[in-house]
């Protein structure tokens, strides 16, 4: 089989970014939650908030550490596999990525240490301030990244001269047409992710009767938040979809599995898109609903995939089903949040075991939804790297060969596999160890003396056998 450096590079980029993305999408929401817990403790002096913030800061430490480690690779990916693209777009993307690095560094350097290691050592107000700054910092960081990413979808404020983008307006380029929608969608996704993880872990603790006072508070708070956020996300998603219809109609057509431009477009619940035949098999549909959703009118005309030439069409099957996974989980989230409301009426959210187990099972769902949504939007851009201006093939490193790309793809998969395994193993230990009374926790004194590193803040041994090197 011929090894195609283009396919392998896209696979590699997708792998590395997906792996990296699951960490920030969680830490952004969690950072705000921790800041909120600090604020509540500061105001009410109720120690339950303090216990919660201590536990979630430990989780934050591990996840943030993993995000940092996997993030180092990202700043080199553009150059190694997409050198033509990085050369062409450097005038805009260079400053964007640099600002992301320096603002993220600024946050990490100045406030993360205080948040992770300052408990009981700095005044409570300072600790609260550090928590807020870390939360703000994560948003500033995602601001730059999402601006850069949105620009790839809806490039603005630039002109392409001799295969090089020149910035004509920084404000138009940074606040490009799809940026506000994408930023909102991702911000709310981060809060949903944080919310569902916190709710799921709190439910897990409640099932085991660990610190019920604190975890009831946490669960109740989360369920209110999710009740508000899950439907809000659907509305933002709708606006984002209309924006995409305006700027990237082919992507929306692929999401809908809609081949020929027409009105009265049905919403497909199930179908198997067949790119070669340019049609769908086994359609199951609700009449006119897609027209209503996309154009807000019952017979609104929606452009079809075939508006684009076959070689300029995205991979319809992936986009179509990725979209359904994301929306399906979104609907499931709304259902869970509403169930919480119904149970709350009867005062039973804390002891309905089936509901608590369901919440625990929901923990991975937001991550799946985020990755599915990311696949939809990125695959939907194909074959464009910069929409309408530069294709993936044009952006590829000219000297890159298939075997080279395959070597690094396998290499990154192995490296990240080890890191991920160790990280998840450690994270589950931190959670299993969490919210126990002081005397039952397996901490070793040694760990409290460890210096300032994100994961060190978690104070949990990695494995508990005897030391073979010393004994």
């Amino acid at each position, binding site marked *: 089989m011929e090894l195609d450096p283009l396919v392998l590079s896209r696979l590699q980029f997708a792998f590395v970014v997906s792996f990296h993305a699951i960490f920030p999408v969680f830490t952004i929401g969690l950072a705000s939650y921790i800041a909120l817990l600090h604020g509540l403790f500061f105001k009410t002096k109720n120690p339950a908030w303090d216990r919660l913030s201590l536990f979630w800061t430990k989780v934050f430490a591990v996840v943030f*550490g993993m995000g940092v*480690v*996997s*993030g*180092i*690779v990202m*700043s*080199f990916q*553009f*150059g*190694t596999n997409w*050198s*033509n693209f*990085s*050369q062409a777009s*450097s*005038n805009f*993307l*260079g*400053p964007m*990525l*640099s*600002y*992301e*690095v*320096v603002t993220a*560094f*600024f946050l990490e*350097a*100045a406030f993360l240490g205080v948040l992770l290691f300052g408990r009981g050592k700095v005044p409570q107000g300072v600790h609260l301030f550090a928590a807020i700054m870390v939360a703000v910092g994560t948003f500033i960081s995602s601001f730059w990244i999402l601006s850069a990413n949105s620009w790839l979808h809806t490039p603005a404020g630039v002109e392409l001269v001799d295969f090089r983008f*020149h*910035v004509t307006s920084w404000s138009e380029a940074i606040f490009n047409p799809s940026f506000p929608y994408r930023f909102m969608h991702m911000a709310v996704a981060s809060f949903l992710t944080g919310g569902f993880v916190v709710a799921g872990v709190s439910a897990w603790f409640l099932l085991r009767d660990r610190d019920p006072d604190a975890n009831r508070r946490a669960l109740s708070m989360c369920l209110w938040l999710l009740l508000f956020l899950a439907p809000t996300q659907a509305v933002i998603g709708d606006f984002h979809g209309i924006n995409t219809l305006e700027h990237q109609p082919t992507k929306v057509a692929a999401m809908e599995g809609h081949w020929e431009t027409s009105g009265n477009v049905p919403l497909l619940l199930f179908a198997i898109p067949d790119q070669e035949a340019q049609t769908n098999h086994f359609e199951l549909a609700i009449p006119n609903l897609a027209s209503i959703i996309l154009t807000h009118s019952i017979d609104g005309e929606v452009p079809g995939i075939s508006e684009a030439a076959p070689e300029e069409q995205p991979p319809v099957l992936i986009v179509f089903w990725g979209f359904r996974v994301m929306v399906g989980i979104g609907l499931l989230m709304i259902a869970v949040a509403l169930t919480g409301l119904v149970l709350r009426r009867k005062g039973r959210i804390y002891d309905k075991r089936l509901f608590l187990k369901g919440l625990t099972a929901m923990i991975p769902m937001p991550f799946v939804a985020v990755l599915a949504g990311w696949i939809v939007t990125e695959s939907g851009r194909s074959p464009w790297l910069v929409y309408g201006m530069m294709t993936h093939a044009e952006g590829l*490193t*000219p*000297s*890159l060969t298939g075997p*080279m790309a395959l*070597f*690094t793809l396998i290499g*990154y998969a192995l*490296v990240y596999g*080890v*890191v991920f395994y160790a990280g998840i193993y*450690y994270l589950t230990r931190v959670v299993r160890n969490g919210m126990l009374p002081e005397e039952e926790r397996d901490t070793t004194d*040694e*760990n409290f*003396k*460890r*210096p*300032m*590193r994100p*994961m*060190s803040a978690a104070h*949990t*041994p*990695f*494995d508990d056998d005897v*030391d*073979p*090197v010393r004994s």
Partner: protein
Amino acid sequence: MEMFDLTLVWAFIIGFGIMMYVLMDGFDLGLGILYPFAPDEDARDVMMNSVAPIWDGNETWLVLGGAGLLGAFPLVYSVFLPALYIGVFLMLAGLIFRGVAFEFRFKSRRNRRWWNRAFCWGSAVAAFAQGAVVGAYIQGFPVENFAYVGGAFDWLTPFSVLTGLGLMAGYALLGATWLILKSEGHVQDWAYKITPLLLALVLFVFAVISLWTPFVNPRVWERWFGNIQLIWVFPFAALACAFVVFRSVQKRREGVPFLATIGIYVFTYLGLIVSKWPVIVPPDYTLWDAASSPESQLFLLVGMVFVIPIILTYTAWTYWVFRGKVRVGEGYH
């Protein structure tokens, strides 16, 4: 815009950033390279503890350099990275493994031996890859139409292998003198013992590289033996620093060996820059050929003017907080 040459300002910033990275990550990578030779497990604890609070701050200069290059000198970014494709991967994989090892070694009992290996091999591979980059830079890159056109292993020549090994030895020397500064007792004795050996090794490798360089790159030959005689200041200054290292180790000074080793690096680095100036993508492209548009350089400069002093202040402060000796059996409180 005509007031000053933005490209020169950026050349200074990036040059300074690389220097900072080499010096600072140099000594903590060096400790990883020395890891297997350490007298015992207590010494390894001390070695790792002496850099644990600062190493990721050190490594930030690398990320900053990567992003800064894309912003200010995109041609460097888009030629070096494809040309050094495999090497860059090895370096990143090495840095990831050793980064994770910092965390998990102390929390692990059963697998401590494996995290020791991850720390050592990760550091060694990353250092070698960085040294090979220097070698490849001296050799130059085949570039057509602003894109690299060579093969995957063009960078891997006997010369770049030597520069890779040379940088490993150099980092190990930095690590050993850092350890003299930060340790005491039997760990410090060991560091004193190995420093002259490493120094001899470094001088030998550097001498071979210096003799070899003019033959690898004719332009360097011309510069060295042409009319710029001032260039000879740098190797002599570096040699003087090496002598100071040797003497101060004999007298068992604690801080001087590390500072003098830094001196060796600074002068070697300046010598390399002067030998190549103003070529940044050898053999053909100068700083100005490689620069991004002035608007982008200016836009990014505004941020850097604020952030770099903050980074430097913070870095100095962490070094101050974690000053003093690291003792066996205790970390920082």
